[in-house]
């Protein structure tokens, strides 16, 4: 990390559409009740503090960091479950690729069990599956990883609430104000429409944006299905430079 400033790195971000995102207080998802601020957010003009952000080089990633089927294997045995490739492109709202950004992901195993000390669901752990990984997007903004399809699991919210199969995603972008955590769902899963966490999002089109598509063209025959999940980060316009007055 040498401190080279990328063109447009301190350009203004488009305002976040907070009606498209979930509101803070969504009673159907009970945990929000005491964790949602009641005051309005203070609108802040962009400052250098939030228009910059950390970047991560490839050098920090291990060779199996994007292979959840093998990155926790105890003896070479691969994880149990429906094998799949999850891939996609990280873009900004201007449809520009976001290269060189860190994408992190975590999930339950094929039976819906998380490997976490606070998780007590009766479905068994898979001794060869931890359920997390990471990747840095390539020059065209693409990431990919191999995993098994996570199972649905019950959670203590309503009397009988179940999460749809999902994978959690964390994405950085190039500005701290682009920081995003979201969840990926699977095309055709009827449980999407019953989930109080999904329902924190008001717009069906926004939910659709979190739903990965089966991509037969990128399957590995006799090995793994493929799902495509593109991620869109906030767009920014560039600061105008003396040598490039039109911006970019």
């Amino acid at each position, binding site marked *: *990390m040498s401190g080279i400033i990328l063109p447009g790195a301190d350009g203004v971000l488009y305002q976040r559409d907070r009606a498209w995102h979930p509101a803070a207080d969504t009673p159907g998802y009970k945990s929000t009740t005491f964790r949602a601020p009641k005051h309005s957010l203070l609108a802040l003009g962009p400052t250098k503090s939030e228009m910059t952000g950390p970047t991560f080089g490839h050098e920090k990633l291990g060779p199996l960091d994007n292979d959840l089927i093998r990155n926790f294997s105890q003896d070479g045995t691969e994880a149990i479950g429906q094998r799949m490739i999850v891939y996609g492109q990280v873009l900004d709202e201007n449809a520009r690729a976001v290269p060189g950004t860190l994408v992190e992901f975590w999930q339950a195993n094929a039976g819906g069990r998380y*490997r976490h000390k606070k998780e007590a669901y009766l479905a068994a752990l898979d001794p060869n599956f*931890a359920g*997390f990984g990471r990747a840095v997007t390539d020059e065209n903004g693409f990431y990919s990883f191999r995993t098994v399809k996570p199972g649905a699991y019950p959670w203590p919210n309503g009397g009988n609430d179940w999460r749809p199969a999902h994978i*959690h995603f964390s994405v950085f972008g190039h500005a701290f104000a682009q920081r995003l955590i979201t969840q990926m769902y699977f095309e055709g899963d009827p449980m999407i429409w019953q989930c109080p966490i999904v329902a924190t999002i008001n717009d069906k089109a926004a939910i659709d944006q979190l739903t990965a598509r089966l991509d037969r063209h990128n399957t590995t025959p006799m090995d793994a299905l493929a799902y495509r999940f593109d991620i869109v980060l906030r767009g920014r316009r560039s600061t105008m430079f003396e040598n490039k007055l039109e911006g970019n």
Partner: protein
Amino acid sequence: MLHPVPTLKESPSQTAGPYVHIGMTPNFCDLPGVYAADMGSTMINGDVEGERITLSIRLIDGAGVPLSDGLVEIWQADASGSFVSPTAPNSNSVPAFTGWGRQASDANGVTVFETIKPGRVAGPDGKPMAPHVSLWIVARGINIGLQTRLYFEDEDNEGDFVLNKIMDKRRRQTLIARKDGARRYHLDIHLQGEKETVFFDI
């Protein structure tokens, strides 16, 4: 000067959930062996100019209960007021000071960062902002990450561009960490209630 109309919508946020640590601080939640270290756990690598400080940040919900399952990321300038990033994505060198930290909260809702005191950064009005650290907070029950700042009680915070935007002056205090021993600062983040922290739409 016209700018292009955005063609895509930002991916909507969802909660990080109670098991955020699996993906973001696996070593913290007893999943060693995949990553050598949790990302953001060390902000200082080698000799760095500036005053070394410890920040403790406690997350508290609207019922007064600490968040034992929260996660905080911080982003800040170095002692001279410069940001490490953006940098060349494929550079091989690790910066002596990364400017970025990530910690999960403990059973008492506390996250602890070993860092340096940031220098002043120029604000949009051209005047230097008071030294500050930018915070991003996620947890179960938080649908979209909360953005705020930490300032220091032993700095001159008058005239700060952001603090001055907070019309209710009493609420400015919610962003100011108190000195809590030598080179140690503490800030309580109240998600909700009488002492509710000021959160930003940036």
